[in-house]
Every structure is written in C-alpha cells, then in structure tokens.
C-alpha cells in the first residue's frame, strides 16, 4: 500500500505527467471519492507531522528489519526537524534469559524527588503545560503505614524526610498481568518478553482506556503538545521509550528501556541518593533484585488485584 501512496497528490491533476499511473486517470466517481478522501487524510497527516508510511505501516511487532530501520530513520528525521538536534533512535530488543525486576526500599527513601526529575530529563517528558512526571512520590504517616487514601503527593517541607512520615514512590509496576494492555483497543501497548510494558506512540489513538484500567495511576496523557526545550532533549532514544511524544498520546515509565536494554541502570536507580532503588535481572541469582527477593520480605502494591507487579517494595530496616 505504501508503495502506491506517494503518487496520491497527483490525483488533483489527473494525467498531468507522462508517467502518471493509470489508476489516477480513471474518471469513475468511485475512484474519485477514494483519492479525494485519501488526499484529505494526507493533508491531515502532514499537519500533525506524520508521514503516510507511519500510518499505513504494519504493527511494530510485525515490522521487518528494513521496515523498522525506515521507521526509526523517520523518527530521527522528525526529531531533527522539530528540535534541530541529531538524535539516535534505537529499538534494541529484549535479551534472552532476562526478566527485569525492580525493588524499592521504603525504609530508605527520604522523599527527595531526585528520581522524579532524573526521569523527566532522561525520558524527555513535557516540562510544563502539561507537566508530566512518570514517578509520583507519596508521603504517608508512619503510624498508618501504607494507606493510599491518606497519601500526600504535594508535600513541600524545607527538608526531607519529615518526622513521622515515610515516602513511597509509585510508577509503572510493569505487571505480569497488565490490565492496561488488555484495555487497549489498538494493541498500542504490550508487554515485552523481558517484562517491560511498552507503548508505540504512533499506534496510540489517545482513547485513555489504559489510564482508567491502570490501578496505579502510572499512565499519563499529553493533553497538549509536549513542552520540551530543544537544549534539554536527550538524544539517546528508544522507539518504545523516550523518543518525543506528540500531543494526544499516553506515556509512562519504561524502566528506561533505552538504558536498561543496553545494560545500564535506570536513571532513577542511578540518581537515588540513598540507594533505595534496586534494579536487575530476576533470573540472575547474583543480581541485587534477586538478593532483595531472597533476603527481605517484599510486598507488591494492590496485591488483591492480581496484576502481579514486577515492582517490589520492601523494608530493609
């Protein structure tokens, strides 16, 4: 299909060129309607910065190597046009024998929100209007324990931690049984073999069904065109991760897929000043996350929903 589409603009002037394809010369009403509506769609597409190929291509998982390379090249081209900056957009796949798991030590976290902003910088979130944070740090009373009904995310004391409080960062839990994936009508979001729940922003239609399905509030919607200064753009990008998003799509934590698929720790783990964040391969008995699972009593958030998060909270005391 994509091979024929580039000739569509010629439909406005049928037979104008010597090598115009026969289809555009057909004067039948049916064909006229077909080409006219396609032309209108085309105009709408170019208005939102997408190429025809982006819309008529196959699902990400069905792309051949060559097709994927073209898709990535188009994202890089769009980045260059929009930000005037050369970027590298990869699509590094999952490794065999790797299942990512995340641990968060609630007895260490001091609620400093360094992770929130490291994530924003790494993952090219919209800075403001709309402000998008993939990590939400909740302040709770030690006396009550984990009680989401009495959690405060807008705390702003002069210093942290506040006496009598503890802090619980919440982000995508990368569920083994993700309700968001089931809710998506277009298969724009899915779980990768290494456990990362990803979104193809080109496939997302912005219906926000996944947002209402997610019990963790981990998914965020671009209500307006993201506001991302070119000088702050992170040029190391992954197609399913931190590449810039258009208006009207959903985004969320990807365990820093552009970093972790290359073997690096996620940005939040790297910056956490107290070492509360643990990340690694659940299948590697020597990994920090496995040691956490073996040595500490871990718990998962909203266990009763049977979402089976791959994000484990624990108190190392």
């Amino acid at each position, binding site marked *: 299909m994509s091979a024929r589409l580039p000739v569509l603009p010629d439909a406005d002037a049928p037979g104008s060129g010597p090598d115009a394809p026969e289809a555009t010369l057909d004067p039948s009403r049916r064909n006229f309607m077909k080409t006219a509506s396609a032309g209108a769609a085309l105009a709408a597409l170019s208005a939102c910065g997408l190429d025809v190929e982006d819309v008529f291509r196959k699902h990400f998982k069905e792309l051949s190597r060559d097709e994927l390379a073209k898709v990535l090249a188009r994202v890089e081209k769009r980045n260059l046009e929009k930000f005037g900056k050369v970027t590298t957009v990869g699509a590094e796949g999952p490794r065999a024998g790797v299942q990512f*798991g995340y641990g968060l030590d609630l007895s260490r976290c001091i609620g400093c929100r360094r992770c929130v902003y490291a994530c924003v910088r790494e993952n090219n979130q919209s800075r403001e209007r709309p402000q998008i944070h993939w990590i939400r740090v909740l302040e709770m009373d030690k006396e009550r324990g984990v009680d989401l009904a009495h959690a405060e995310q807008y705390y702003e004391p002069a210093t942290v931690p506040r006496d009598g409080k503890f802090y619980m960062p919440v982000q995508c839990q990368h569920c083994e049984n993700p309700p968001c994936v089931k809710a998506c009508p277009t298969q724009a979001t899915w779980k990768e073999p290494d456990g990362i729940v990803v979104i193809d922003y080109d496939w997302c239609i912005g219906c926000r069904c996944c947002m209402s399905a997610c019990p963790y509030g981990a998914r965020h919607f671009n209500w307006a065109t993201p506001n991302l200064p070119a000088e702050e753009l992170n040029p190391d990008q992954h197609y399913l991760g931190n590449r810039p998003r258009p208006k009207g799509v959903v985004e969320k934590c990807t365990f820093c897929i552009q970093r972790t698929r290359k073997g690096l*720790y996620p940005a939040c783990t790297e910056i956490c000043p107290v070492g509360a964040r643990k990340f690694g391969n*659940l299948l590697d008995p020597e990994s*920090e996350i496995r*040691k956490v699972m073996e040595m500490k009593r871990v718990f998962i958030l909203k266990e009763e929903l049977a979402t089976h998060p791959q994000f*484990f909270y624990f108190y190392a005391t």
Partner: protein
Amino acid sequence: MRDFAALGLAAALAASPDPAAKPVAKAESLVQAEPPPFSEGIFPCSACHADQKNPEHRELAFHDEQQSVLAHGERWCLDCHDLDDRDRLRLASGVRVPFTESYKLCGQCHGDKLRDWRVGVHGKRVGRWDGQKTYFLCVNCHDPHSPRFKGVVTVEVGGKKTTRYTAERIRPEPRPKRPEEMAR
C-alpha cells in the same frame, strides 16, 4: 504477601523467552567509589600525631567538630583510630585497616548491614546492572562520627564523582503541579 512475590517470580521464570538460557556469566567487576574527602590538610594524621599520643579520654581542643557531633553510642576516638598508627584505623581485634576499608570497622557491630551491603541490598550502586558497577562505602553516606543518615550530596574527588554525607537533611525537589495550576 511474600508468597505472591514468589509467585510473581515463578511466573517470570516461566515466561522467560528461553528457559534454558542462563544469565550470561560475566566477570563481575565491582569498583569502589572514592571515599568522601578529608577536611583539607588533615591527612596524613601522623603529620601532627607522630609525637601526640595521649590516650586519655578528654575534651579535645582540636578535633572538636568531630567530638561535638559524636553520636555513636559510647564511642571514643581510640575505639576506631589507632593510637600508634594514626593514618590507619584499628579493628577490635587489633588489626589495622586503611581508611578506604572502614566498612570492615563498621561491620564489626553492624553485621546485618554489612551482609546486605556486600550483595547490593543496602547502599548504593551505579553503573551497569549486567556488568561493571561502582559501589559506595558506608562513609559516603554516613558520618562515621554521627552515623544516623541525614543526607548526601554529590562531590568530586580527584576528578571522580562520588558522594559525601551532609550534616543536615536535604531539600526536596519541587512538588508536582496541581491540576488547577496547569492552566493553559
């Protein structure tokens, strides 16, 4: 709850793309972070202490900043610092260790933390989850003279980034905007 976690892990194992594929055996390379910097001009201690060897428990005229914050049970300088070799620390067994191995000293009492720290459960590591990583020392985050955690800052030592404990708690980053503050 633990059962559920185990279940999650079992599910993870079952869902692995290739169950036979073991994690790649890698030369686990752990790199020690730079210890936090000494106060300027203080090291080597022997520069002054070569002929100062008073073991008496007393108010110090010089290291008062350490003594004033000292909040570490019933400790006294010479419980950890060696009287005869001031440039090294001294374990309860009498073995002397360099300042870069102070974790051995901490681990004499805090064995549970030492155990967790060695496998990466306590403390911080940066770098690669699948390879070379840098681990931080007890004293990168805890003031050895007043070990209860307060805060940390990033500092540079010898051109390398590391962390140093602070005397006060740290300021949090700005809170997220409330929905009503995100007007067009």
